[in-house]
């Protein structure tokens, strides 16, 4: 437990609905933190497949990344995710890159 903020693990990323309970209080479907994490992991897998990375939830508190060579990394938040994934893949990620966007569009 972090003495300053009382959170396990410290920082909560802004994209985690727990960072803003009031904003998401009226959610019509009660999505649990676990459900939200699962959704995020699914989306991340779709997003980084192009770069040879797979993502798993790790103990409900972190993300386990595996690169194409089998090397792994563990990060706590989405904010730390991208640097770790880039290190594992050896590439720079750019969501505006045309080839990358084309790969996302070829899901079906």
């Amino acid at each position, binding site marked *: 437990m972090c003495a300053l903020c009382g959170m396990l693990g410290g920082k909560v990323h802004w994209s985690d609905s727990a960072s803003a309970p009031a904003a*998401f209080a009226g959610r019509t479907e009660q999505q649990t933190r676990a459900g939200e994490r699962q959704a995020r992991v699914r989306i991340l897998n779709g997003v980084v497949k192009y770069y040879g990375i797979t993502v798993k939830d790790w103990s409900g508190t972190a993300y386990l990344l595996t690169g194409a060579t089998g090397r792994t990394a563990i990060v706590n938040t989405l904010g730390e995710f991208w640097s770790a994934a880039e290190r594992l893949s050896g590439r720079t990620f750019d969501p*505006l890159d045309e080839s990358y966007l084309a790969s996302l569009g070829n899901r079906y």
Partner: protein
Amino acid sequence: MTDYGALTPVNILTGFLGSGKTTLLQRLLRSPQLSDAAVLVNEFGEVGLDHHLLQGVTESTLLLENGCLCCAVRGDLQQALRDLLSRRMRGEVPDFRRVVIETSGLADPAPIAYTLLSEPVLRHHFRLSGIVTTVDAVNAARLRDFPEAIQQVSMADRLVITKLDLADPSALAALRSQLRTLNLSAEIVESTDIGADPHRLLTDDIYDGAGRFREAAHWTTQEAERHGAHAHATGIQSFVVLFDRPLDWTAFGVWASMLLHRHGTNVLRLKGLLNVAGVPTPVLINGVQHIVHPPSHLPEWPDADRRSRLIFIVRDLQRARIERSLAAFNRLVDPPPSPARLREGEDSARLPRSPGDHRGIPLSGE
């Protein structure tokens, strides 16, 4: 976790040398609603306010006539803020409820915003309220020569045009147009129009109880929606992306986080009034380059328009690509298409679709 909105709000007051920052600050500090503010300046000489020394505090802290605290920063802003915090905790200074940081002329507001959100101690006590930039109506042409001044304009939440009595109407119109190209989300105020509630220049922000509606209204104007066709000579462009269908929050967070990791330096501001799938009230987001603050919300929709609006103020990034990118990420949470849709083919430029009715269905394996 402390509610982000309950943290002590901090305004950054910036603007080119001679653009009227200090005059504006003096005027604001005369407002009774700001009598509990602490002001951080580089040197007391710049402030020129009537003051007397506060006993028991160092020579770098003064108490102003109206009750405001004034501190000289002397180079280390983080240290000045930490000192202020510990003195407040020890009861050595009045319990200030807002901090206004007056920057030097060509300062970049971004590192200050970064400090407030990232410094291990400060981030639990302070939040960024708004960036106010003064612009001199007479010397607006000089903006061109100083990329730092252009950046201050692009990053602002408020643009205060000063020296109006010396400006001619056509120059003023040209300046307003230039300001709108650089920043279509900021409220533009002529200093002569500040009026009865000057404190609102500082206090209205998306975390303020009453002010959040007024602030969000600046993001949703018709003017804002029409603008954005052209980039400024510096490569800065501001535009609004509108969505008809609710956004998947988790996909949006992944997208924005990835975008800012790669392009954060060039995403000067990111603001959104969002219709989030499964959430009945608007979610407000606010970003300054790499930093996105914890979201806020409005307790109800301001009007019948339920579209999400995402405002970008970017440098050297293409609007069309940003739109395509966000659409592609939103499609990752779409259900697999029906056979009929597959035959028709996908339109890659189509705006995001609603993910609403497919929750719980995993993405198709690949």
